[in-house]
């Protein structure tokens, strides 16, 4: 490790916000802050690695696709960027219910990165700077804000010990600012490992950030050590695709961004390929487990249970005779193929043997080895739901640094941290989405409330209200919020209002349209084996039948309004879903009402938990540590039982 220079000089340019790291979190954070008019400097150890995808070459997928669409509805960039750079697109789970439909696009990685860099470079109020930040500068808070009524400030008086004032880079340059957003991903004291080989680098051999961790520790921030991994990349010219199952893209292509016109992105797509491991592969892995740094204890970091390495899968699902592997192109201008499902940290010779045991990869040549990466991240329970540190005013954190995994999870946090840094500088209440408003709300609530012992991955099952939080209605759920925050422009907001009203009016109309049983309707219904009507029915009632949809009934509905062409499909989809699943949506809405009651029951900041005798000791300790905002958040802390919550509720209502 190099020694840091003693000389220090002060940079005279003034910035409102410093963003550390230009990965998926850092890009969204920097764009959000600068778009809202605040001068922002974005630090990265390598400008070539802006919006780098060091692992899988895709955006979206189960539940992650939801995050991307929510980011888009709030005015983020990820969806637009993948719409510009995708090479294949699929709607996953389309045979299942609408809650689990998930859009996933294969990216041209290099183009994704380049395109995002262009967006950043052309953004007003935003400056990119290649330098390693080594220290967060803070000051004690000694002045009491004048307006102590405002809750943020009140909170300053009660718990804040320090506030952020700037950062220092490796060269000794000081940058002063009002807010800092840390988005260091997997770079902090990063170490890449496979077999006995260990290198102190970030992903893809990039420079690790070796100093910031110590600065954070000096500020009293608790760090964890997590690990994750990536599979090998193969030379596509050496793969025999004829032994694999081809997976083509969907037609027509559905864009990620609600602002991308579908017609503008229809294009030829590349394919992915499915193959399977076999007993031979598993045998090679089992025989060499003792050489895996994970099993030998050479790596201490905790890996993601839900994104396991191939050796983890072989051990965990010992009864499974095979596991899926997907070969995914890394871009249009490269032969590199990503082997999805086969991340590993086994030695190079074992990797070569195990991949070659797979049908279609018998002669495959490795371009890059699979490896595991270990890095420093934080216990995110030190953050408020706004993603600001509880103890350091103005210091925000997002992305893998917060113990999450995945590009989409990172982007979502980056956007929220960026928005809240601005809210802070404007003296506004922070934007906090709750679990009923979006996957973003679930993600952040989980991160700041529950203990993470491994990288946190978004999953459908984590969202209790998933039937309401669909990817198809993310715009209806969140565009208004994005507009209020200032990241969604007037045009897009007006277009949303048109869509929203059109859906409402159309459903109202369908309730009133009575049909007989003749002509077009009869033909349609006979073709679908739908039980004939005895007397008439409303179109609304017919759409509720499982075998019929709103779109199918178009010919039997001559008075159907002529919607703007760019909204037509989207309106049809919403009308269909809202009618068909009305009862379920209503019941889920009732669950949300119940949920909101505990969310709205706020816990006073000055509550003295040691005062409540009936709390169990573990619960009391956790509550003191996490200081939840609401009874709802308290109820999700592990170690706080329902009985403890009852005690808390009674305490809050008991006459004092």
């Amino acid at each position, binding site marked *: 490790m190099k020694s840091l220079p003693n000389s220090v000089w002060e940079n005279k340019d003034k910035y409102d916000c410093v963003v550390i790291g230009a990965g998926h979190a850092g890009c969204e954070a920097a764009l959000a802050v600068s778009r809202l008019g605040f001068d922002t400097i974005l630090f990265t150890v390598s400008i070539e690695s802006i919006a780098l995808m060091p692992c899988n070459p895709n955006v979206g997928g*189960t539940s992650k696709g939801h995050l991307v669409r929510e980011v888009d509805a709030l005015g983020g960039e990820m969806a637009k960027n993948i719409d510009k750079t995708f090479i294949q697109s699929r709607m996953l789970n389309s*045979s*299942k*219910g609408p*809650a*689990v439909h998930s859009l996933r696009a294969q990216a041209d990685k290099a183009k994704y990165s380049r395109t995002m860099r262009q967006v950043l470079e052309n953004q007003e109020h935003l400056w990119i700077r290649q330098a390693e930040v080594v220290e967060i500068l803070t000051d004690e808070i000694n002045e009491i804000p004048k307006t102590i009524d405002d809750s943020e400030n009140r909170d300053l008086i009660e718990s804040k010990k320090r506030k952020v004032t700037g950062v220092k880079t490796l060269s000794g340059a000081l940058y002063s600012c009002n807010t800092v957003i840390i988005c260091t991903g997997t770079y902090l004291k990063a170490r890449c490992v496979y077999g006995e080989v260990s290198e102190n680098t970030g992903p893809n051999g990039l420079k690790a950030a070796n100093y910031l961790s110590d600065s954070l520790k000096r500020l009293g921030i608790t760090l964890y050590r997590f690990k994750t991994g990536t599979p090998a990349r193969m030379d596509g010219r050496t793969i025999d695709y004829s032994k694999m199952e081809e997976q083509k893209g969907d037609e027509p292509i559905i864009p990620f961004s609600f602002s991308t016109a579908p017609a503008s992105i229809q294009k030829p797509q590349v394919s992915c390929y499915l193959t399977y491991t076999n007993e031979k592969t598993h045998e090679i892995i089992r025989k060499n487990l003792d050489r895996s740094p994970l099993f030998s204890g050479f790596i201490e970091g905790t890996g993601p249970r*839900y994104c396991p390495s191939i050796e983890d899968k072989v051990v965990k*699902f010992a009864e*499974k005779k095979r*596991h*899926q592997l997907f070969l995914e192109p890394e871009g249009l201008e490269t032969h590199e193929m990503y082997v999805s499902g086969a991340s590993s940290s086994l030695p190079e010779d074992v990797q070569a043997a195990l991949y070659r045991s797979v049908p279609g990869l018998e002669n495959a040549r490795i371009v890059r080895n699979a490896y595991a990466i270990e890095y420093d991240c934080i216990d995110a329970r030190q953050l408020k739901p706004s993603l600001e540190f509880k103890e350091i005013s103005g210091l925000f954190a997002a992305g893998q640094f917060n113990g999450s995994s995945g590009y989409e999870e990172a982007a979502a946090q980056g956007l929220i941290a960026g928005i809240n840094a601005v809210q802070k500088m404007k003296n506004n209440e922070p934007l906090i989405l709750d679990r009923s408003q979006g996957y973003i709300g679930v993600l952040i609530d989980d991160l700041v409330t529950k203990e993470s012992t491994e990288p946190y991955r978004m*999953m*459908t*099952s984590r969202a*209790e209200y*998933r*039937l309401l939080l669909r990817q198809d209605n993310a715009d209806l759920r969140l565009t208004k919020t994005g507009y209020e925050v200032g990241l969604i422009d007037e045009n897009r907001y007006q277009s949303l209002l048109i869509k929203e009203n059109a859906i409402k009016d159309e459903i109202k109309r369908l309730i009133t349209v009575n049909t007989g049983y003749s002509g077009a309707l009869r033909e349609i219904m006979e073709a679908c084996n739908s039980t004939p009507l005895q007397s008439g029915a409303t179109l609304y009632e017919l759409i509720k039948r*499982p075998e019929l949809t709103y779109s199918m009934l178009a010919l039997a509905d001559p008075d159907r309004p002529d919607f703007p062409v760019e909204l037509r499909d989207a309106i049809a989809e919403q009308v269909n879903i809202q009618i068909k*699943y009305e*009862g*379920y949506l209503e*019941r*889920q809405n009732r*669950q949300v009402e*119940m949920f909101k*009651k*505990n969310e709205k*029951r706020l816990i006073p900041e000055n509550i*003295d938990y040691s*005062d*409540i*005798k*009936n709390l169990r000791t573990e619960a009391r300790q956790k509550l003191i540590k996490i200081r939840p905002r609401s*009874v709802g958040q308290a*109820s999700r802390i592990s170690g706080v039982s*329902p*009985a403890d*919550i*009852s*005690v808390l*509720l*009674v*305490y809050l*209502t*008991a*006459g*004092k």
Partner: protein
Amino acid sequence: METKYKTIAAISTGTGTSGIGIVRLSGPEAITIADRIFKGKKPLSLQDSHTLQYGRIFDNSELIDEVLATVLRAPKSYTGEDTVEINCHGGRYCLRKTLQLLIDNGAAPAMPGEFTKRAFLNGKLDLSQAEAVADLIAAKSRMAGESAVLALRGIIKQKVRELRGKIIYNIAYIEAALDDPEHIDLDGYSSELEVALLQYIDELDMLIQSFDKGRFIREGIRTVILGKPNAGKSSLLNAFLGEERAIVTEIPGTTRDVLEEILQFEGYDLRLIDTAGLRKTEDPIEKIGVDRAKNQAFNADLLLYIIDRSDEKTNDLLLEMQENMHGLEKKIYLFLLNKTDLNTGIKSSDLDEIIKQVFRSAGVASPTFKIIEISALTGEGIADVEEAISDLFFKEKINYNDEVIISNIRHKNALYSAKTSLNKVLESIAAGLPEDFYSIDLTDASNYLGEITGETTGEEIINEIFAKFCLGK
């Protein structure tokens, strides 16, 4: 903690007139405040905990009452706080005046259930115990008390928790399959779930039905007396009650109003509802009475049908019974063959034939009934009636070790809601909806059951539980 709570006071004994009444005071200043109005040998603050002190309550110089005061120091009291219980003379004046004086001297009037809330907060009881305490206070009979004790011991919770665990397993299974379709397969799952759901619904039904049994215990058996005017209904009622309440008269049709009397038997109550005789009538006032009688009969748990043996001919009786029992054939009946003292007329075996014929023609295959010969006048057979009711309603002696009885209406409603949700899952399966739709209603079912086990929490549930407490507890 005491510093944060006010000291509260309330009259803790019932509203009726009684020999003594208790004003209870709890909180950090309980003893100090009591000393401001209590004059004894020594101030209460100098007395040991758990001792009884004689003294007088004064309003300035005016003597209000002579009392005994108990000092209970924290944490060894019901609330876990310093407590003073002042035993006054039972008149409302003394009690109210004493309470008022305590309030004037710094105590706050307690809300209903507030003492128990404090006991709960201070770790003296958990929520389900608190709820059971409320049931116990409200219990009207021995069995009701025992069933509340059962809740206190957590047996209901255990049963419901098991069922909830099974439902949660299914939610988790569906969610696991959503997240890891490669390794967790949903093929054939819906038909497995269907079978499981039917079984869960059966279990819920049994618990819900036990509520009815619990209701008989808690509220008493709603019993309506049927029969021709003059058959002896009113005198039967009197025989039960042992005092003249209803007007016994020779002119048919005078018992027009619905009278209700509660009769305490060993372990349970019989709520006897005497009605106007069921008889075709053109008299508008009497007609109201007859309609009301029919209405009462529909809602009754038990129908007592009285037949005057001296006054009946077989054919007429058959017609009369068919008319009176119309629409009520599925009820539980006790047929009382009255006037056994008169030794003439219809026999028990004839009546049995007629009754069976009535049920047969109404298509009821296995009716629930018993015939008992009585004399309302002499009281002969009345003891048999009591025994028969006990047999009909509590045939299997309630075994507190293995039978769970729900006696709390909040619990019953939660069980019923859970059942409704599970039925919705069955509908979703029948409609061929994807598995992730099941989880909405499974979650609802699990939440409803959680309201019983305490795993679902919320302000409303807490309030509902504490609202059942009377003032002073």
